[in-house]
């Protein structure tokens, strides 16, 4: 009986470890296709290409400029997102802050607000997206960290990324030319 329980416990643990691996938490993300020059930015596979932003959330309203803008989707429970947030608070968005916003996906508003404070994102336009209602509901995005690129309010590109600098080189939001990225 003991051995059966022990094996069941081990199987359960293996399933949890596998689940973490499936969430991309056990290894650096790279594209499943042939390796590109950068392993830090890869195309997002599932998102609503061509979705139109009817109304920007209040904190991101400055992105409603009609030009090419980027929303970085971070989650409070993703280890890589904390590393990305550290890059952002370290000045990775310098020069493009007007055209880049952040959506923090969280279970509850308090978690999102705490994530923003803990990672020093308070000075950057950040929308706390409770239960991922905006990014999942409007754009079918359920992964993080992801970057959603909008041209004239239309979702035109989506990426998984681990390096903000690499991402900005790839997507070139409006203002990049004058930014040192």
């Amino acid at each position, binding site marked *: 009986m*003991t*051995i059966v*329980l*022990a*094996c069941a*416990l*081990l199987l*359960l*643990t*293996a399933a*949890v*470890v*596998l689940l*973490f*691996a*499936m969430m*991309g*938490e*056990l*290894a*650096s*993300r*790279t*594209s*499943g*296709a*042939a*390796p590109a020059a950068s*392993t830090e930015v890869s195309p997002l596979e599932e998102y609503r290409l061509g979705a139109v932003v009817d109304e920007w959330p209040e904190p991101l309203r400055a992105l409603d400029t009609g030009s090419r803008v980027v929303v970085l989707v971070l989650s*409070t*429970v*993703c*280890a*890589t997102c*904390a590393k990305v947030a550290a890059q952002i608070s370290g000045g990775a968005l310098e020069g493009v802050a007007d055209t880049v916003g952040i959506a923090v996906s969280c*279970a*509850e508003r*308090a*978690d999102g607000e705490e*994530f923003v404070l803990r990672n020093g994102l308070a000075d950057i336009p950040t929308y706390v997206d409770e239960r991922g209602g905006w990014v999942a509901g409007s754009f079918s995005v359920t992964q993080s960290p992801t970057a959603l690129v909008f041209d004239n309010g239309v979702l035109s590109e989506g990426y998984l990324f*681990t390096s903000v600098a690499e991402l900005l080189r790839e997507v070139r939001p409006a203002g990049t030319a004058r930014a040192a990225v």
Partner: protein
Amino acid sequence: MTLLNVGVAAVLLRAAAAKTVGPSVAASALQELTGGRRRPADIVVRMVALLEVATLVLLIAPATRPVGYGAVAVLGLSFAALGAAGLLRGSDRPCGCFGVDNDKPLGTANVITGLAFAAVALTGLLAGPDAGSAATAATLTSAVSSGWLLVTHRTAAATAYRSFLRRWGSA
């Protein structure tokens, strides 16, 4: 000896999970080792993951433990050789080794871990198969694997815990 076996088993479990789900990371690192020639197929990496799981299972049951030590020695020396090759070639592609979420390429960590595996295997073979029952080994492997996940994902665990407390308090 039981704890050494459990440590090896926990590493193998995590490494196998990462290779199974994202074989392209290891395949890409191996391709770099061969000077950019043909990239190993994902199935090859997944077969290594399968070998790691089989080794883990062999280590847990006392009757099969000697065979498990043999497999651990083979895997360990292979890891060490790949790490040495990565060092010599100046590898810089992330290998996703041992299911650790960082950008480290094949190198020193693989050499050290591989040699540690080989040392555990040798010690185990010399000490004999009597290193705890299968139930003890399976339970401890579960505990170490779970604990390792909690440590490496403590931010997420803390967020989930706080969220739970809030819900508990408002219920």
